[in-house]
């Protein structure tokens, strides 16, 4: 029977010829990880279960990234739990400050999550790795603990929804805009419990960084996974960095989808999600002139080198508007170094932005850029819920890095061409 890429990966990992949507399956896990917020609960559950070892020390990663470098004593104690656990079980992929990055930027960059994998992470944006053709999904800490012990997890196989994008994208429109557009169309529960499969000619030519941004936000539509069939772009990205063998899966042409959407993307402008939901999406031109107090460029959604290049291309030779704080956060140490070598950091600093060490920090209102009551921010992050970046009376607008950079320069939400013209 024809199958989707998600169904094929699950079937192989369950040791079955095929699986059907809604079926409960127990599958083998290729990689499991947690961060400084979620891993402490997983470690507590691991110990309560009386486990004496992990299923495979090379398939588990602990990444302190949310409240690090430690923002306070309580966070320091949580981060230390990860370090101690990693030492006790001799985990090679524990990433200390100085080696770390925002987890969903770091793990693909390091070649630790790969096409065809089943990946579970105790973080909702684990769905990012669908960009590589992996079945990757966020789970809670207890699920992570169970996976760390057994190397297995149970899933309800999700029905798939196919999104076919057509047309050539306009300048300054990328993966972030495609996914914001999509969430705007189907809503924050439009793909609840589903696999979102992104396809079509627009995706075929979409660079890996944009694909990662897209799949990253599948969870904002409620999806279990966002996934793209691997191709030559995938091969070029993973072949140089893969730490283990990988396998390309694809969807059969006759595979069954719960729904198929087909959209022409050639006319869309950069998109912005307005407070307080990722589904409140408008074209940037519809809300231009909205004043802002802060800009954050970074995160697991848009903290990659390509994102920083886009932002720098808008900011080069210009200054951040008076009254605006612009915070740039390279997502990993490697991104940081490469951005330095390319002169991007110089561009940001000369523009009077600040450049931070990698951290999730402001995205979740942790630290490094918290908003006061009444303040507004444009952020390249993924969520704009009430209070997400600080006070409950603050606001977050989600955008791509070029729009964020243009907004920083002009002091209000702006299309990049407003700056460059």
């Amino acid at each position: 029977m024809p199958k989707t890429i998600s169904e094929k990966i699950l079937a192989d990992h369950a040791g079955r010829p095929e699986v059907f949507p809604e079926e409960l399956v127990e599958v083998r896990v290729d990689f499991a990880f947690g961060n400084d917020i979620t891993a402490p609960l997983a470690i507590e559950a691991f110990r309560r279960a009386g486990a004496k070892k992990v299923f495979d020390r090379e398939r588990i990663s602990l990444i302190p990234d949310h409240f690090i470098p430690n923002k306070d004593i309580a966070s320091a104690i949580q981060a230390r739990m990860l370090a101690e656990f990693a030492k006790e079980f001799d985990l090679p992929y524990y990433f200390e400050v100085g080696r770390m990055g925002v987890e969903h930027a770091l793990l693909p960059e390091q070649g630790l999550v790969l096409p065809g994998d089943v990946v579970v992470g105790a973080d909702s944006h684990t769905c990012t790795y669908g960009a590589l053709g992996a079945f990757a999904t966020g789970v809670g800490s207890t699920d992570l603990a169970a996976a760390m012990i057994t190397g297995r997890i149970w899933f309800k196989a999700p029905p798939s929804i196919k999104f076919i994008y057509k047309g050539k994208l306009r300048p300054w429109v990328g993966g972030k805009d495609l996914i914001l557009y999509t969430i705007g169309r189907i809503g924050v529960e439009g793909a609840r419990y589903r696999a979102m499969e992104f396809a079509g000619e627009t995706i075929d030519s979409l660079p890996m960084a944009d694909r990662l941004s897209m799949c990253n936000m599948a969870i904002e539509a409620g999806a279990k996974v966002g996934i793209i069939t691997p191709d030559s772009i995938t091969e070029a990205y993973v072949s140089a960095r893969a730490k283990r063998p990988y396998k390309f899966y694809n969807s059969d042409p006759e595979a069954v989808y719960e729904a198929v959407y087909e959209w022409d993307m050639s006319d869309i402008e950069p998109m912005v999600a307005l407070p307080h939901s990722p589904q409140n999406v408008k074209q940037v031109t519809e809300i231009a002139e909205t004043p802002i107090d802060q800009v954050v460029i970074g995160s697991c959604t848009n903290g990659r080198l390509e994102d920083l290049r886009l932002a720098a291309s808008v900011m080069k030779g210009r200054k951040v508007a008076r009254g605006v704080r612009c915070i740039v956060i390279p997502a990993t140490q490697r991104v940081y170094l490469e951005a330095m070598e390319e002169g991007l950091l110089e561009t940001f600093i000369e523009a009077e932005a600040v450049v931070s060490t990698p951290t999730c920090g402001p995205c979740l209102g942790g630290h490094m850029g918290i908003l006061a009551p009444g303040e507004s921010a444009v952020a390249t992050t993924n969520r704009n819920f009430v209070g997400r970046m600080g006070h409950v009376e603050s606001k977050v607008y989600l955008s791509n890095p070029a729009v964020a950079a243009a907004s920083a320069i002009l002091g209000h939400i702006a299309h990049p061409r407003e700056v460059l013209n």
Partner: protein
Amino acid sequence: MKIRGKTWKFGNDIDTDAIIPARYLNTTDPGELAAHCMEDADPQFASRVGRGDIIAAGKNFGCGSSREHAPIAIKAAGISCVVAHSFARIFYRNAFNMGLPILECPEGAERILTGDELEIDLDSGVIENRTRNETYLAQAIAPFMQKLLRAGGLMEYVREQMAEQMAAWKTEDR
């Protein structure tokens, strides 16, 4: 198992930042988390909620982050059950893993209001609204999820399974 309690009603898309804001995630202590439960949706909630009370909500309850602190905070605040039109998937898993009973019931989610006295039969999914003299039927809990609840949560289930299956898994060709 039967649950009886007074209801607190919330709307659609109650996200995990509303259930327990990230600024409090530098602890795993259930009591501390409970003190800030639902803070950004209703600042009075944590101080007014009573043991055994019930949350009713609209669509997509628990959307957003994977933080297990969300069901932990709700459970530690004394909430005995969450009835919603629908749940976000990671929250749904986490609730069962934590042993927090949750029921999907669109009709109930629509009709129930703050203050209503409910009696819920978790086995049958029948929700009786004593205040309005109405009865709603929630979607049945999947057999596998019932197995988890019977075991007392995921880790207890894993512990049962570990002894019999670990040996077989270890020898499996990876």
